[in-house]
């Protein structure tokens, strides 16, 4: 299928050079990551065309359009949902149900964020919930900081539970062929354990805070949640659409539908049912992210074509010595450490073909499967550790800047690092149990 070229050749070094230069350009953030990735992609195709190891056709077939369409489809649905105010409505209802008690409010908003981000884009979830949280905290005369950090952490952790929760999962799902239900069965329990574990950690960190007595509870109760609902009819229609989409996700493997087809179906349904302003809806889709992913696939495709990922897979196999537990733990913690400092999408796109190679090299499925789940756990939770580890944290931090206690790096790490450590540790325990019990085979 692809030309395998022996190591040490010009092609190999050229491809590796373009790839590394592009990734360094992306991670230093001197120029916008999408521009950096697009330039890298164009350079890879140019170099490949000259040296004969890659061309536009091969680059296009390297792009995982399943991922791109899934991401786009979900973003279209979110853009339409966003305009209805449904998320804000639910968040206010939850705050009122807690009667302003910090402990309940923290758990309620955290759980809601986790649930929402399991199906919606993390950044959108935070953009919708954070401003509301700040105003609720203001009313109750409580510091918004614990709420915001908890929510951001849960937005990241929430994404672990499903195939569509985090771009890393989407890419892993598409690359491994696992479906929505596979993710739900194998990762949702991990996510649930991690949520409970980190909630306990948050209670410990904010132990004084959660015992505080809120003021002006009656003011909170007076808020009319219905007012947040800008378009009640639209919200109802969109919840039906989302319900249909989730239902389809649950059965997509039996129906033989790709997850991307389901997302496109949902987007088309939302566009037809919601009848929004098309131009406005499409302009709300984060195209730069879609192109970033596309360009990364092209870059990594170039590496794949010179056979370098094959070498990497062989190296990894030798290192892990056929011990699936060792291999899983290396991947989980390696991905967890790396994605704390770099974009997890860039990491996952580069690692998916390596895992696929391992499969081609004859690694039996029962040994390969735990590696996929380990990669997902490490890549998704890794983002917790640093303020730049995930886009949800970056957004929350910038939103917190207008409060009295803006989240700085130190404040974030105080919460994020414990959550990261607990998350990865619980994840490791789960993987170990999964491998030993055969649940992950």
């Amino acid at each position: 299928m692809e030309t395998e070229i022996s190591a040490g050749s010009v092609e190999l070094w050229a491809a590796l050079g373009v790839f590394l230069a592009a990734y360094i350009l992306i991670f230093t953030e001197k120029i916008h990551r999408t521009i950096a990735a697009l330039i890298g992609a164009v350079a890879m195709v140019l170099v490949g065309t000259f040296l004969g190891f890659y061309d536009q056709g091969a680059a296009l077939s390297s792009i995982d359009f399943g991922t791109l369409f899934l991401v786009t489809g979900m973003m279209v649905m979110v853009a339409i949902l966003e305009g209805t105010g449904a998320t804000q409505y639910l968040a206010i209802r939850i705050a009122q149900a807690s009667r302003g008690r910090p402990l309940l409010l923290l758990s309620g908003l955290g759980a809601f964020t986790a649930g929402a981000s399991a199906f919606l884009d993390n950044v959108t979830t935070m953009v919708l919930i954070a401003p509301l949280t700040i105003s609720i905290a203001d009313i109750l005369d409580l510091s918004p900081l614990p709420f915001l950090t908890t929510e951001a952490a849960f937005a990241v952790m929430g994404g672990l539970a499903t195939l569509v929760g985090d771009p890393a999962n989407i890419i892993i799902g598409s690359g491994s062929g696992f479906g929505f239900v596979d993710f739900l069965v194998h990762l949702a329990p991990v996510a649930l354990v991690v949520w409970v574990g980190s909630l306990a950690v948050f209670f410990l960190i904010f132990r004084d805070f959660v015992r505080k007595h809120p003021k002006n509870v009656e003011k909170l109760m007076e808020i009319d949640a219905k007012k947040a609902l800008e378009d009640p009819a639209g919200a109802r229609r969109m919840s039906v659409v989302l319900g249909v989409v989730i239902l389809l996700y649950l059965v997509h493997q039996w129906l033989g539908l790709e997850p991307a087809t389901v997302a496109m179906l949902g987007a088309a349904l939302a566009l037809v049912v919601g009848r929004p302003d098309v131009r406005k809806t499409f302009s709300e889709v984060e195209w730069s992210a879609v192109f970033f992913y596309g360009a990364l696939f092209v870059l990594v495709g170039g590496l794949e074509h010179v056979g370098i990922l094959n070498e990497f897979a062989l190296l990894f196999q030798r290192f892990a010595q056929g011990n699936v537990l060792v291999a899983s733990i290396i991947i989980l913690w390696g991905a967890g450490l790396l994605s704390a400092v770099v974009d997890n999408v860039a990491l996952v796109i580069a690692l998916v073909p390596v895992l696929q190679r391992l499969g081609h090299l004859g690694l039996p499925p029962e040994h390969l499967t735990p590696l996929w789940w380990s990669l997902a756990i490490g890549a998704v939770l890794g983002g917790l550790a640093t303020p730049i580890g995930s886009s949800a944290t970056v957004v929350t931090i910038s939103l917190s800047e207008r409060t009295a206690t803006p989240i700085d790096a130190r404040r974030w790490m105080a919460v994020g690092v414990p959550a990261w450590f607990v998350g990865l540790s619980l994840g490791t325990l789960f993987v170990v149990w999964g491998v030993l019990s055969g649940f992950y085979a």
Partner: protein
Amino acid sequence: MIPALSAGIIFLATYALIFSGKVHRTIAALAGAVAMITAGIALGFYDFDLAMEAVDFNTIGLLLGMMIIVGIIQPTGAFQYFAIRLSRVSRGRPWLLFLGLSWFTALVSTVLDNVTTVVIVAPVTVSIAEVLGVNPIPFLLGEAVLSNIGGVATLVGDPPNIIIGSAAGLSFNAFLTRLGPVVLTVLFVSTAFFPLVFRRELRKEPENLENLERLDARRALVDPLTMRKMFWVLGFTVLLYFVHEPLQFPPGLVALIGAAVGLLWVRPKVDEVMNFIHWDVLLFFIGLFIVVGGLESAGVLGLISQELGIVARSGILIASVAILWISALMSAVVDNIPFTIAMVPVIKAMGAQGASITPLWWALALGVGFGGNATPIGATANVVVISVSERTPHPISSRRWMSSATLVAFLSCVLGTLFLILGIGTGWFL
């Protein structure tokens, strides 16, 4: 039979929805695409992977690259700058101004999207005409018509050419050498024709010549530095187009190289550039490719390819001329993009029977390109100038359009036919 039937129904329903204008065309195309994939999976003739194969990403990449380049140039005010400079050079003489503005639009639209060109040039034209106290209608009409004609000259000039070039594997130079002469002739004929129709307006002495001095070209130029940079980028891109075939660069890659160089050199705000990209148009294309791909996979075209092959072999000349006129008529009344995308597999099917089909591609390009001028709704540029003219005291009525541009469209199709006959006769178009 059931797959072919259901694919046919989905195709027809989608196209009817698009042409009816009841729903936004992108929604209609996407809904059609999803319906086609779902039906394909249920009946076993199509799936997501096949759908992705059906999408011509070379076309999408080309459109995207050119949109990014335009997105960086547009805010610099370069178009306005040149339009005002042209009006100064013409010294207010209407027919010179007409010549300058319409040829400028035609020239720009050979490389850039003609809708964008017209969107920017038309309002400037209206203010120049106001300053001079002349009727803007001839200028606006000339710009729309000539931009549509100019777009036919090159591979990247208008979306149908991009689709045709990508599907047929025809190079930039092939387009320029085959269609360039036709377009040049048509441009000359139509610039001679317009002053005849609008002799009253164009012979009028300009009133407030001294006001022309007040139009400051420099002030229109918001960002001269970026304009100069993008001038080089555009020049470099066009140069690459000339040599893309020996370099083995597909046109899509060339456009994306140009866009990458522009982005790297100018360093604009990415989100602002992204806003200039017409995502709905790109998704419209993707949806259409998926719908037509489903039609192909279901074997609908296979059913009629026998007949199509006979038509193609019985006389390439007759087939070409027929395609030119049918395409012209169709694109006068409906959106030419869906029409072109649907025609691609039809022409390919004709070739599958062994006939040489290159002339058919040229005929299609000429027909859809020139046909758009026939009616006020035939091309997006027409719709744009009409809506601009509606904000002035001289709106362009349908009657006005029909009495001038429609004749130009007819003339250009006649000239196109002559060239087609000549090209096939001499073997130049084969």
